């Protein structure tokens, strides 16, 4: 009786399968895009641009990643794509070394690999679509912080998690900049918020009560900025304690307008996704080769290439004046 069941199962499977595969027979170029974490609004806005590019170029875009930033998951997904025989893989690396082993494998399998947002080991990819170097971000944030606090006083940082590698990278550069240029400023605390806005709010609240003469809170993960801003607003310290960070316009508009958040630094994430896809396709079609000095990406025009870095341009500073012009 069970045997019959077994046969039914297999028969059903085969039938279903044939249906699904029938719909799968299209031979477009396949570009696979791997964000650090899918849920993150930052990468969702990247995807918007990527989708646009995919449509223009008539390719199939795969967008998949860990639901929580997790290095092991990233490797597994890349390895899946290798056996899927995609043509291009574009990765935002959660962890340099971790991902590289998988990426090298992909290159061996004849897949074009490039990175965006966060780079891998240089030998593991052909190009890095560079929205802004960690140095650039670190210095940009630190300089902005200094500008707002007249280069003196205490400030605190809120990071995604203690273990996220890009966060460590940025923090490193921020602290370096702090040392060399702003001796009168003091970093009093670094708190993780697990990419949770609510936790960021709690942490910031505690930070404020613990450090009465705190001048500024710098949040370098996108959920952290609105969280910190809300805390400052609730503490009634609007204007007294500044908030800056890396965040998305839409999540922060209300705070920027309310004068809680002074400025958020970010590049146009939509363009980042768009550029990454164009670069990927060009790679696959051998239109983009090592040593090229410039690269033309559809409606965005031409970008300059430094070595193997395709530069998106300087990070953008959103503030009261301009933030309403952006929707991502």
């Amino acid at each position, binding site marked *: 009786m*069970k045997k019959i069941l077994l046969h039914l199962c297999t028969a059903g499977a085969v039938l279903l*399968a044939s249906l699904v595969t029938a719909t799968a027979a299209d*031979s477009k170029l396949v570009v696979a895009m791997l964000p650090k974490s899918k849920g993150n609004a930052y990468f969702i806005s990247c995807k918007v641009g990527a989708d646009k590019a995919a449509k223009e170029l008539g390719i*199939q875009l795969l967008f998949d990643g860990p639901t929580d930033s997790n290095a092991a998951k990233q490797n597994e*997904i890349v390895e899946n794509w290798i*056996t*899927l025989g995609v*043509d291009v893989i574009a990765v935002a690396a959660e*962890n340099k070394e971790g991902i590289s082993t998988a990426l090298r494998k992909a290159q061996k399998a004849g897949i074009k690999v490039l990175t965006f947002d966060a780079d891998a080991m240089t030998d593991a990819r052909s190009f890095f679509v560079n929205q802004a170097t960690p140095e650039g971000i670190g210095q940009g944030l630190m300089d902005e912080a200094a500008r707002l606090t007249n280069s003196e006083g205490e400030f605190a940082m809120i990071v995604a998690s*203690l273990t996220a590698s890009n966060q460590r990278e940025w923090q490193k550069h921020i602290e370096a900049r702090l040392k060399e240029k702003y001796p009168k400023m003091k970093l009093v605390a670094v708190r993780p918020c697990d990419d949770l806005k609510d936790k960021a709010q709690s942490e910031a609240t505690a930070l404020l009560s613990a450090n009465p003469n705190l001048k500024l809170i710098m949040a370098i993960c996108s959920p952290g900025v609105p969280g910190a801003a809300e805390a400052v607003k609730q503490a009634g310290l609007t204007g007294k304690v500044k908030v800056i960070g890396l965040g998305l316009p839409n999540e922060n508009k209300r705070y920027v307008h309310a004068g809680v958040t002074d400025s958020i630094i970010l590049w146009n994430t939509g363009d980042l996704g768009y550029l990454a896809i164009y670069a990927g396709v060009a790679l696959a079609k051998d239109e983009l080769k090592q040593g090229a000095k410039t690269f033309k990406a559809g409606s965005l025009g031409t970008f300059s290439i430094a070595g193997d870095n395709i530069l998106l341009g300087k990070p953008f500073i959103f503030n009261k004046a301009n933030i309403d012009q952006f929707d991502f």
Partner: protein
Amino acid sequence: MSVSPDNKNPRDWKALLTRHEMLLLYVLIAEWLFFYFAGTTTNRRGVVVGFGTLDRQFDILRHSCEIGLLALALTPVIITAGIDLSIGSLLGLCAILFGKLWHDGGLPIPVAAGLTLALGALAGGLNAILITALRLPPLIVTLGTYSLFRGLAEAITHGAITYTDFPASFLFVGQERWLGLPTQAWIFLGVALGVGLLVHRTTFGRAFRTIGFSLEGARYAGLPVARRLALVYVLAGLIAAIAAVIYTARLGQAKADAGTGYELFAITAVVLGGTSIFGGSGTVHGTLLGVAAIAVLKNGLACLPVVMRMNAAEEMSGLLTGALLLLALTASVLPKILSRFRTPHHAPAP
């Protein structure tokens, strides 16, 4: 491996055929066939790609080794009616310790690995002592160590340090093949065989079951209850450490967040494999099937054109794993519910 559970009558083939493990096997086969047909395509360059390829099958094996090991570690624990939530965190801690011993301690890889295993067993020993000496509920003890171990891993590395640049000879364990199979698969199968024999073919396993069914009964039978329970948790720690080393080899890096959330997948696999969370009954090959079912599902989904278009492989696999677990649970109690109407195997003893 076909180790028959030693609490069933092997001659009763009908029961055998309808046993949980067999049903799970049917599901697995159906699952596999489905993905084989639905998940295999030829790409633009006319190469056969997707689920049907050998590489993919090996990847499935490689990707499920760590969770598989944790599931193996949990099987005896759950058979004794216990639970260990801390193994995921312990994997993280061990990975860090391994990295530190090798990188900062400057020890050769094999020595570092050996020490890591010892430390893993030691950490398991902490659980064991609290649970046996103080007779504390495992759920809560390991909930505590769950935070503690992860916390220590972060404290040691300040969350920041990542140990990397391991020698190729070591990465071989996690990334290359040996005798046709991914290297770590051999370790995994070895451990599986070991645990399987321990649980099904030795007096230890017999003691585990007895304790799981009736702890007092075991004590009054003169069984060394405390020592056996301790063994189970130490073993879990040891296997978690093995998983940590393999994990490090597969990713080429050791980081404090290694293995986050793995305990849930492991528990899911074990329960899916038919081990009763109430203790006593359960089999290692069931657990292996459970691990396989989840792994195939995860990887298979990523190959389905439909799912690809939805860009939702990750979420889908999670969703379906949960659903599968609920299904398995319901299936496991259905006979009991039906038997309330049909003939029961156990009339209430007077």
